[in-house]
């Protein structure tokens, strides 16, 4: 499995934080909380698309809302491969942190 880009890492982490599955809005909120920067839905969807294509995330349609003509949410779930990729990326960060001289790693 591959190393994730930073944005992909943040999104996958958010999914995990939210319990492994979520729809778009909470993901966005979590990402903003984590990175302290606003993210636009468009970027979010694009990244999710590419994550889906790589096989780290699956999407399915949830149940429609009980209102007539209600839309159904799409729910994104992180896959095993995704979790693996996340682990590898975390390991990389750990590695880097261990190897950096203490002056920098203390930051």
């Amino acid at each position, binding site marked *: 499995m591959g190393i994730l880009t930073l944005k992909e890492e943040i999104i996958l982490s958010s999914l995990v934080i939210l319990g492994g599955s979520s729809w*778009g809005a909470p993901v*966005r909120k979590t990402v903003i909380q984590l990175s302290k920067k606003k993210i*636009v839905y*468009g*970027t979010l969807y*694009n990244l999710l698309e590419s994550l889906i294509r790589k096989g780290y995330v699956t999407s399915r349609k949830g149940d429609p809302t009980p209102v007539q003509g209600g*839309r159904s949410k*799409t729910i994104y779930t992180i896959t095993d491969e995704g979790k693996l990729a996340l682990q590898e990326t975390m390991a990389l960060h750990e590695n880097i942190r261990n190897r950096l001289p203490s002056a920098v790693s203390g930051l």
Partner: protein
Amino acid sequence: MGSGNEIKTPHFANSLLKRMSVYNDRHSILYDFEETFYEIMEDEGAFKAKCWYWINAITTYLEFLKLKCLRGLIMFFTYLKTALRNIRRHKKYSIINITGLSIGMCCCIIILLYVKFELSYDNYHKDGSRVYRIPIKKETKSRKVAWPTNTAALIPVLRDKFTQVEFAGRLTFDNFVTVKYKDKIYYENNVAWGDQDIFNILTIGFLHGDRLTALTNPNTVVLTKSTAEKYFRGENPVGKSININNRDMKITGIIVDSPQNTHIKFNIIVSLLSQKDQWWMTHWPTAMCYTYIKLAPGVEVDKFEKQIADLADNYSIESKRRGEKITFSLQPVKDIHLYSHLDFEKESPGSVLYLFIFCTSGILILLISCSNYINLTSARFSNRSKEVGIRKVAGACRAQLFAQLVCESVTISLAALIIAVITAKLLIPYVNSLVGAKLEIRNLINFSDISGIIVFTVITGLAAGSYPAFITSSLKPAALIRNISLFSGNRIFIRKMLVTGQFVISIFLIIGSITVYRQIGYMKYSDPGFDKQQKLVLQFPAESVFTNRLETVKEEFGKHPSITGAAASSSIPGRRLSTSRIFPSGERAAKSMSIKFLRIDHDFLQLYKIKMAAGRPFSKEMKSDRFLGSIIINESMARLNGWYNPEEAIGKTFYDPPRPVVGVTEDFNFQGLQRSIEPLYMNIWPEKFAYFTLALDIKNLSSALSFIKVKHLELFPDIPFNYFFLDSAFEDLYQFEEKVSRVFGIFSLIGILISCMGILGLAAYTAERRTKEIGIRKTLGASVSGILLLLSKDFIKCLVTGTLIAWPVSYFIMNKWLQSFAYHTNPGWIPFITASTLILITAIITVSLQILKSASANPVDSLKYE
């Protein structure tokens, strides 16, 4: 989640989001947006929420577009890769296609450059819409004449009395002006005398000197850069003195060389004030100067023309008496090159007619190559039906197939464009020398032209590819794999029509060039009525170089054994002759005519072997010839005066005091066989002799030439040595027709080439299509030649139809063109038969090459398929 809340999400933003339909399905955008909207509304209020909504909706849409573009780009590159692979796979077709199309495009590019060039004449003058020239139109009872020059006296009147005229200036020209600086002495042509105001009317760039005062004083002159280089290499000439026609002039400026695209070009401009005492500056009936004015802004041309109409009456009291009508009109300078139909223009003008013909030919050629391209592409696609069928079975969707096939054909046309541009760049120097223009590819590098060309190429690719791609992609795979021909019935007919059309055009072009070539040959080699072989002509300024020493000069030159005769004259056949007023004695008022004249000496008629129809040539023994001013006329002049038997003319007199006609010559072509022979009269006037003709024996040409040069220096030390051969000078009269012939020839070649391409492609297609049929026929015993004939039958039919159409049309058109010449050949059978035979042979060769392969193939192989 929003129910019970009166505030809804912004409607328009929602519709924007809804447009991302695909996205929408996969990502429940509206849902997420709504949720976040209400959250923000709770936290920060409705206004902030709406702002957020709008901003995010738009940015999300942009992201969506970004994704789509990326996807589209990737798709495009995939198609491109496939397209290139396919092109390489069917090399033969592709090469034929690209070559055919690029020939057509190359032609078009060159023609486009030429048309732009011709249209750009004199378009660079500042305030060009207000710049006019004033020509004169004269209507007599029998004819209308118009000439581009006007009286010098007009300008002061216009300048002083009319406020509508902002600037007014004159330019008058002289050739063979002797210019001397230190030890450099040359004849200069295109020497102009002009007013200072000319610089305010026409835009002439100054490199040195002051534009506003350059010619305000008499005896000042400006030179063009290259003229200055000739005399003052390296030095700065401004302020120095140069000698022009034995007068010292001060150089006050250096101007840029005249660009190619102007109707009036000069090497030197001398201040017109230097001539202010000349008689023709104030003599109304003499029209020596090109007259230019710049109207003040807002002046209406028609009104102004009416206002100066009265001035025309001043022109000549004599003219008025004769009942001639003189009009001045305003001619926009930028229209002169293409639309001026005046006689005696300084430079042979372009012609809108020929421009139009070029454009049409260019469009024709492009149409031919495009139709070939379309034909060939559809043939190619139908041959690939098997490949397409398999891809469909493998799951390719129809839109994809369509897009990919179209992409292929667009790639081919773009490739053809690149090749065309490169070829055009290489060919332009040759075209320039052929047509006498200065075209550059650089002229096309501007936004509108480049985008126009690229758009056109892409459209051709689209057009060529879309119809066959449409059909190919829509058929069921089963049909495709079984290789059923897509193009039957109607479409074969269209294709045959296209091929026939090409034949028609190619045949017409060949007939045209052969006819033009024959006409030119006829004009050049038919007997003009005088002997132009082996004559060397020396040219002199028309001052009295020969006064009182004509005989001595002739004797001196006669000393060389190769020089067999000499004669002097005011002009020679082939150079323009001037006209002068002449009238039968006693009828000055009633019968005054403007007739061309030649001043000749006693030996002229004999040297040129001009035959007499009646009477005798001038002779030294008859002193009256010189002192009474005897006249010799030609037959046309005799007929003009009603003497249909030339003998009647002898003894009749012209002028008062009367001068007798002593001889009538047979008509001889002094003007080129395009025109019929005009009336001509000749007399002796040694002061006007400007040409000296020597008859040479070509055996010792080089020694004769050096002898002549030495003698010239001896006898005329102050005059530059300038000579030419009469026959080549005479041929120069046909320059224009030569140009036309060459261009026609090139077009025919191109037409043939392109038709070849077309036939080649179609033959290949046919051959491949009918491989099985050929195999069967062979097993049944047909011979290779029999099969060849069978397959060529279609083409032969097209050729015959093409011939039947092309012959009458070409005959009609070429006949009309030939009629415009006073002396012309008949179209004759030769061009027609040659054209059709040429095309026939070309077609047969091309077709055979293709078909031979299939015709001689082993039937076993071809029948193995199913």
